[in-house]
């Protein structure tokens, strides 16, 4: 079994209104040291396979077909082994 930790980020140059808004709120709370906030999405996907390269292929497809929109997103992932079900 594998767990894929998938992170979906906004591409460089794509506006991140959520990050900007969060930064504003953090400043209001007194965190004056904050200079940038970027938001991203994180998915942890468990796969029932013994073959790591197969898992990798699957995760790549998942990102392309659903989890990321190539127009604004870029994705990265780490795959790790886990025991049992």
């Amino acid at each position, binding site marked *: 079994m594998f767990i894929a930790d998938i992170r979906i980020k906004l*591409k460089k*140059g*794509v*506006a991140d*209104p*959520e990050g*900007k*808004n969060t930064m504003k709120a953090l400043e209001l709370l007194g965190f004056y040291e904050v200079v940038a906030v970027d938001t991203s*999405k994180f998915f942890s996907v468990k796969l029932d396979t013994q073959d790591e390269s197969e898992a990798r292929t699957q995760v790549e497809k998942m990102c*392309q*077909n*659903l*989890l990321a*929109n*190539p*127009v*604004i997103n870029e994705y990265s992932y780490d795959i790790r082994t886990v025991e049992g079900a």
Partner: protein
Amino acid sequence: MKLEDLKICILRIEGTNCEDESFQAFKRLGANPEMVHLKQLTGQDVLETEKRDLMDFHILMIPGGFSSGDYVRAGAIWAARMKSKLSAPLTEFVREGRAVLGVCNGFQVLVEMGFLPGLNGIMSSVPDAVLATNESSRFECRPTLLKYENNYTSIFTQKLKSGQILLIPSAHAEGKLLFPPEKAEKIYQQLEDNDQIVFKYVDPDGEYAGYPWNPNGSPHNIAGICNPAGNVLGMMPHPERVFHRFTHPDWTRGFGTDIGDGRVIFESVLEHVCKKF
């Protein structure tokens, strides 16, 4: 074909919330709409009598709402479910020139499915555009003014006058239409050249204006686009919410009519499809 024989599929899944107004808009004009759950088209987990064939319909409407809780991205889950089971019939539906209307969440679904902007064939395998989070990072809900920019490519706007301004409410958090940054301007030009831009946000003077007249920060103020053939329209504002004059915000000031600004979109497509089939 007679109006009463025109069949309209008002598609819904969990989280759709504009199907009633959409249904009534077509019904009140004398057509024959039916609310159809996605499962009825895919044939999964439904009775034999509940199964429907997409090709029995002439118009497909994907109404607004928060399908599947807007998880992953607005419209992404619905698009994935349609793509997995209905790619072939949907492509055929569009190729035959039948009409597809996506409003709000429906527009997001059409973009995520690759039907809009439709610059590389009927359906692209990955999305060519996205409806991104509003510039304000908030849900923007208010009447918006739309200028009719199309040169009659779209079959949904044949009864509009060139440059006409409609008051149609917007209600969305992800409505900023973006294309890949490296070729965005080229795509805008292509949309212009193909006459695919249908509506743009304007201010009361009819000028292109920024926030709040453009509720989401969409570049070039784009509110709605169609495919190159004109039979697929996606728009963020809700025409079904202003079918009647009395649902306009200034209804007490009266205009001696019960015709709301959104009605013409439904009239146009019904007239077109009646003639075609």
